[in-house]
């Protein structure tokens, strides 16, 4: 059966831009975006006049569904470099966290290891209907998690282990990438470093520029890590990226992505000293792609919508701010072919709001659609009647 969504204002996040159009869905995929699509007899019709249709929202940096946050399941801290660890083994895909995301319009999340390790392992992208018995992993190796600064320092240095300083963090980071390079150059045969084969294999697609490194860093850590990565042909995102102001040009030149957030904390004294959405605007003006992150459960998942709203208040155009919670996180986690925009051929992961999120303060989710199925609808009778 096909689903026809009629009459919404469609923010495609693609070439079509913002259009008043109908969207036709079949077998979990978008098959047409055009005005006045004529329904066939069997089609399920969703009357969405007055609503805004967006690609399902995505958060590119979360720790949701981890079986037990408190016991530190989030980071494997027996060694500072654990590139072959896969977060998938720590996730409870039946967790209610995912159902909550669905209700807030977030249809995909990138789940990653914590920030205690210099290199923490592999992150995944999963659709948030996974708790409904439909686990669908969009990318089982969406990124390689890395972390600079205070977190590895305190996780290891405090126990009298290395790294205790930023110097040692970057030395180990460089040494690992160097070891992967030598390993690759030998045709993946020779191991000349102390790393295990599986650890080096994990780094191969990273050095090939296929899997981005997702680097927890703020302030001067950003500058230092960009300096190191000039020597390697890798793709990467700077995650958190607080205190960006002095480094905007350097970031634009590096060509990396930025995953900004979580915001909403008080002005602290250390890494969280400057969380300023004017930085997001500066990055946008320099052509840097920024995605908003909640770091959930650090912040509640829907906070990405509020962060996009803060970006709008800081002067970022609304459409661009919405790309920060749809297209850009999809692009920087290797999922752009499947999700992130409303185009024929892409997955029918869609969300209908009663106002434009990031602009209209009252905007809330009316319907969430994942792979063509309505997985959430706001149960106000009047609205429910609109489904025939």
């Amino acid at each position: 059966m096909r689903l026809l969504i009629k009459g919404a204002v469609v923010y495609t996040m693609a070439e079509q831009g913002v259009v008043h159009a109908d969207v036709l869905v079949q077998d979990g995929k978008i098959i047409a975006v055009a005005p006045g699509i004529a329904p066939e007899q069997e089609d399920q019709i969703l009357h969405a006049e007055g609503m805004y249709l967006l690609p399902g929202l995505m958060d590119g940096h979360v720790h949701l569904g981890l079986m037990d946050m408190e016991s530190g399941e989030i980071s494997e801290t027996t060694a500072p470099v654990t590139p072959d660890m896969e977060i998938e083994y720590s996730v409870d895909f039946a967790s209610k966290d995912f159902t909550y995301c669905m209700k807030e319009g977030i249809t995909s999340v990138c789940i990653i290891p914590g920030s205690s390790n210099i290199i923490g392992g592999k992150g995944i992208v999963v659709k948030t209907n996974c708790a409904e018995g439909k686990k669908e992993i969009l990318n089982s190796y969406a990124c390689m998690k890395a972390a600079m600064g205070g977190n590895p320092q305190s996780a290891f240095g405090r126990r009298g282990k290395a790294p205790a300083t930023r110097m040692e963090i970057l030395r180990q980071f460089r040494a690992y990438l160097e070891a992967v390079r030598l390993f690759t150059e030998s045709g993946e045969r020779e191991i000349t470093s102390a790393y295990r084969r599986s650890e080096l294999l994990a780094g191969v697609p990273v050095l090939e520029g296929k899997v981005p490194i997702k680097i927890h860093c703020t302030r001067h850590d950003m500058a230092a890590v960009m300096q190191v990565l000039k020597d390697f042909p890798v793709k990467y995102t700077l995650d958190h990226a607080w205190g960006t102001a002095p480094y905007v040009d350097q970031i634009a030149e590096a060509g990396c992505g930025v995953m900004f957030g979580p915001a909403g904390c008080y002005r602290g004294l250390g890494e969280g000293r400057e969380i300023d959405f004017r930085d997001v605007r500066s990055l946008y003006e320099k052509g840097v792609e920024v995605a908003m992150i909640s770091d959930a459960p650090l912040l509640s998942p829907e906070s990405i919508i509020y962060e996009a709203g803060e970006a709008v208040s800081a002067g970022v155009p609304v459409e661009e701010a919405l790309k920060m919670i749809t297209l850009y996180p999809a692009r920087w986690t290797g999922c752009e072919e499947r999700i992130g925009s409303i185009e024929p051929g892409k997955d029918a992961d869609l969300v209908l709001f009663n106002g434009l999120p990031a602009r209209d303060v009252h905007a809330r989710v009316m319907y969430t659609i994942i792979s063509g199925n309505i997985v959430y609808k706001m149960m106000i009778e009047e609205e429910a009647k609109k489904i025939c």
Partner: protein
Amino acid sequence: MYVLKHGMVHTGNGDAPFPADLRIADGRIQEIGRGLVCPEAEEIDLAGKDIFPGCIDPVCYMGCLNLQSIYKDHNERKGMILPELRAEDSFSAEELVYQQLYKRGITAVGISTGGRNPVSGRMMACCTAGSSIKDMKLPGTAPLRGNFLQSTYVLSRQDAPYPLVRGSALQSVVRILQSVRKEMDAGKELAEWMLPFRELLTGEVPLMAAVEKEAEIRTLLERMKELPVRLILFGAYEAAPFAEELIEKQIPVVLGDMASGSGKMYRKVELEKLVDGVKKGLVLAVSAAGIQENAGRDTFFWNLAELRKNGLSEEEAVTVAAKNPAKILGIEKETGTLEIGKRADLTVFTGHPFVNRTAVPEAVWIQGKPVWLREKRCGRGLAV
């Protein structure tokens, strides 16, 4: 003296906004009306702009935390029931001003003692810009802060022998109140330590009671039923089932930060019911503070947006952001609405911030002085 001309005035009383001029002198609003003329005043043209009462966050730890130290200044450890302590004695103007709450339109806060003691101390209302407590403290009767929830017990068991459960925390406070009341009824002279409790029992000082779970709220309301204490619920994430009772007893609710730690995700927060309560007379406010930690100024507005999503109208949102918290902090005679005689604590926005995120603050005034002007485009030669 200033006259703010041609702005759209949102009083905070729930009225529909109307275009008017505001005359400000001696730190207060002297006149509100059309076509005000005052030759000696500086005129500022606010055509196309919206004027609101400054927002008030009724619970704020920033300003008495001592951020740079591991020894926090808002949680004393000498004992558990400490009504003699005053947040203002820990107050650091520098720390509060550093948060730049005023830039976002928050002009006053209730500085609060922390969440680890059944009674942690006396709160203080103050404005968010200034250089010293001397000028920043607002007159009024700020609440006493109490904590009757499980996280208090979890914290206190680390180094205190008692109480070990939230029940005994509440019980200790109720017992003290009962015995003080008995002394009062018998007309006896009260010992000095009893005086703060007398203030609670006479209703002079309200009790800001931190609770979050439904069971904690039910127990608090039940055990306090016989006592004439003016309660305010703080945190209060699961307060919705009690809305009717709270309206009837005129018990205000300060909804704590819902973003940090995914507070909203992990609790049963029924925002639609709370909003429905507001429409029936519930005095609701929001805070960027949680029970133990403070989030930043943005979360104050995110919380309001959550209420807007669930049916709170934009003018009701102004009341929730300014008028209600002023009432809760006992400073409603001073600030919280735009009315003649009140302090000129106000914000000028380029639209309605509770409608559209493109509306940004243009100017923020505290006690009749502009404390912040966006790119100094508003007015001429105003010193910041």
